[in-house]
């Protein structure tokens, strides 16, 4: 069974696609059946990927040797573009994460989405799109070449687009979907160019081969750095890094389970995954291009900015999902920042790489769970504003507890999963760059603060909303509870003392090269202390301000903070800046070019035709109707032709032959029309007498 799973790893991706196709074409009309089919298929995929992961943990070499496969997709010139796949450690991990969370979310959705079904939305469509997403994500994860990666990359974008715009009758949802797609596309633009650069230089699309070629010196210096940075653009778009993060909060317009799956756990992690997967290329892109920055510097800088910016914005948001969204952005920023760490020796710190992956791993669980909790809350309260909630702990204890676990995990409460991964990240940053460490520490503090703010405002104090919230059914509760377990425990696979995760993950040929020389080091107590402090400070502040359900303190503080508060509340005006840019530049340019097209290019065409008609209108006057006019025309023509003919001998000596005649012809034509015109004049003079 395990052997089958490993050798047919493509099945993991194919199963959701099959379910998507079956739902679309066969069971479109029966929602419940569709949901069952979808869940069954994803569960099969989960089973397969678990087996693969199990085998990978057991015997990674076996998986590496047996899981690879390739199909000729198409041939251009003499180059075969292949659909190829391969499972390595990171992939195995991602497979499990994706299928597991997909399975849970699909189960959760069965109940969560029911009320929308009654409103006329198609359940089948929902599940088909979810399956499609799973397929795309798994394709992205499974492949080992750039083209298919890019294909999966685009496809997750598409399914995300579809799912964000699920409530298509709202004005905001399609808008958000479009925004998400476009922001992603901006990143993809760079990604595509990066791939093209790598392809052009190395003449291969395979990660391993490309890395080897680069190592062999086929691509060096600025070009490589440029290629790496361009490729990273893709990650920026997909993982919501500054300045392309704007789509992610808006993407919360989609159904909450979708947010949990796509915009928290899996798709947004694709950027991080991609950077990790082709880390060797990044690691070799050490040629400084801009102000001495190289590719990893760039990555780290972007990650750092994103982490702190998103955290800052999250502090003041009132929409529960937006807070979580910004938190996601921030956490992704941490991961990216960590990935961008390199040791002073010029090589990559394995810690940065593994810590980033580790956080990706843990974050997937607790963030998905947090989103599902928020879904549960929204499901109960029919609002997303945390100021209209409060005191829900009594009414929804399971949700509250799981949410608390998630909050603790993400804030880095000691022992929880987030603590270990965050600690590992801070450790890596600490090794790399102190300034960035400080930045990360502040960011982490803010994380603790706003996450507990969310928890307190939602579950503690008095209920401020209307209606009667209550616990959801088992289909929604089960995922919460199920995810709570790893949120607490999973961190223990990667403690500084026994870092199984690191051992597992870095045993990936792609990154092996870069990481093999790295030493195994124990816990960094300073960092751990910092982590503790961060958690304590953040949580404490939050408790002080919101813990008792009393909002007056926080309001006073917000008034005191004035500008900062506003900036945070308005998301640093980045959206407005984008809109301004699009409106004032892009659309204005489009309108200008439209006018240019209409009044210049098209006008030239029209003017030519008008000119023809105009010339004709003028020249037709030579047919004045007067007979003697015509006779005169004959005589004039004869004279002109004689003149031209008799002087042609002389003229021809100086000028090329045709020009003389063409000139004479023109003179003749002009003379005739002038004659016609004046003939008419004479007639007028005559008439006036």
């Amino acid at each position, binding site marked *: 069974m395990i052997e089958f799973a490993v050798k047919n790893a493509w099945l993991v991706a194919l199963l959701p696609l099959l379910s998507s196709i079956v739902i679309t074409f066969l069971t479109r009309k029966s929602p419940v059946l569709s949901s069952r089919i979808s869940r069954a298929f994803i569960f099969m995929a989960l089973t397969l990927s678990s087996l693969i992961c199990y085998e990978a943990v057991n015997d990674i070499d076996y998986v590496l040797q047996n899981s690879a496969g390739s199909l000729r997709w198409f041939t251009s010139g003499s180059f075969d573009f292949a659909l190829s796949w391969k499972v390595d450690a990171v992939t195995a991990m991602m497979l499990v994460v994706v299928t597991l969370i997909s399975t849970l979310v699909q189960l959760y959705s069965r109940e969560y989405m029911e009320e929308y079904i009654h409103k006329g939305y198609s359940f089948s469509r929902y599940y088909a799109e979810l399956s499609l997403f799973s397929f795309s994500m798994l394709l992205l994860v499974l492949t080992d070449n750039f083209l298919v990666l890019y294909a999966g990359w685009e496809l997750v974008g598409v399914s995300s687009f579809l799912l964000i715009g699920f409530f298509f009758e709202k004005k905001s949802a399609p808008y958000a979907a479009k925004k998400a797609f476009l922001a992603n596309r901006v990143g993809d633009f760079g990604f595509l160019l990066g791939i093209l650069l790598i392809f052009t230089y190395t003449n291969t699309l395979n990660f391993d081969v490309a890395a080897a070629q680069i190592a062999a010196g086929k691509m060096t210096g600025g070009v490589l750095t440029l290629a790496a940075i361009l490729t990273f653009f893709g990650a920026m778009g997909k993982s919501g890094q500054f300045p392309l993060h704007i789509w992610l909060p808006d993407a919360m317009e989609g159904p909450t389970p979708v947010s949990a799956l796509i915009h928290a756990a899996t798709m947004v992690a694709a950027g991080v995954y991609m950077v990790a997967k082709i880390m060797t290329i990044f690691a070799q892109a050490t040629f400084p291009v801009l102000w001495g920055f190289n590719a990893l510097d760039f990555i780290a800088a972007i990650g750092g900015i994103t982490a702190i910016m998103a955290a800052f914005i999250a502090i003041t948001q009132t929409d529960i999902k937006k807070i979580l969204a910004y938190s996601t952005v921030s956490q992704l920023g941490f991961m990216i920042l960590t990935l961008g760490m390199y040791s002073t020796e010029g090589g990559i710190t394995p810690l940065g790489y593994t810590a980033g992956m580790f956080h990706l791993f843990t974050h997937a669980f607790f963030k998905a769970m947090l989103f599902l909790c928020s879904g549960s809350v929204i499901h109960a309260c029919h609002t997303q504003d945390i100021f209209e909630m409060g005191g829900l702990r009594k009414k929804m204890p399971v949700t509250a507890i799981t949410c608390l676990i998630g909050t603790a995990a993400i804030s880095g409460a000691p022992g929880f999963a987030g603590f270990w991964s965050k600690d590992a990240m801070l450790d890596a940053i600490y090794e790399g760059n102190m300034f960035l460490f400080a930045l990360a520490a502040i960011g982490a503090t803010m994380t603790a603060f706003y996450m507990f703010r969310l928890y307190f405002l939602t579950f503690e104090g008095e209920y401020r909303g209307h209606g009667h919230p209550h616990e959801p059914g088992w289909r929604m509760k089960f995922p919460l509870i199920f995810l709570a377990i790893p949120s607490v425990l999973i961190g223990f696979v990667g403690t500084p003392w026994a870092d199984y995760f690191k051992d597992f993950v870095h045993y990936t040929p792609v990154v092996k090269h870069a990481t093999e020389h790295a030493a195994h080091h124990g816990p960094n107590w300073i960092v751990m202390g910092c982590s503790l402090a961060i958690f304590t400070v953040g949580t404490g502040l939050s408790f002080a301000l919101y813990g008792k359900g009393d909002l007056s303190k926080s309001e006073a503080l917000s008034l005191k903070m004035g500008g900062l508060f506003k900036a945070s509340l308005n998301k640093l005006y980045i959206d407005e800046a984008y809109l301004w840019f699009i409106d004032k530049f892009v659309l204005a340019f489009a309108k200008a070019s439209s006018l240019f097209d209409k009044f210049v290019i098209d006008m030239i065409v029209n003017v030519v035709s008008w000119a023809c008609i105009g010339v004709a209108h003028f020249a037709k*006057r030579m*047919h*004045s*109707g*007067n*007979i*003697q006019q015509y006779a005169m025309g004959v*005589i004039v023509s004869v004279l002109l032709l004689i003149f031209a003919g008799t002087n042609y001998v002389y003229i021809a000596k100086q000028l090329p032959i045709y020009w003389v005649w063409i000139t004479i012809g023109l003179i003749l034509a002009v003379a005739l029309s002038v004659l016609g015109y004046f003939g008419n004049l004479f007639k007028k003079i005559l008439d006036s007498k």
Partner: protein
Amino acid sequence: MTLTLYHYLVLAALLFCVGVYGVLTSKNAVRVLMSLELAFAGVSVNLVAFSNYITPGQLTGQMFTIFIMTVSAAEAGVGLAIIFNVFKNFQTADMEKISTMKW
């Protein structure tokens, strides 16, 4: 000063040009016809002169002239018929008024 070919040629050219001038300026259709005859006469003089000086004894030019005379007579006849018709329709033989079709 003896008579040369050029004397006749100049005369012919003058006659021809006067004819052309007449065609261009006459208001009356009949006078246009007369002017045309003048132009033909000019051509005839030319031909006869050439015949006499260039191909003496061969009479080519004279034969040509005879045919031109025939044609000009026929043309005059037809022309006059046309002028009658025009006169019937327009009640005038004014060249300037015979210009309803234009442009």
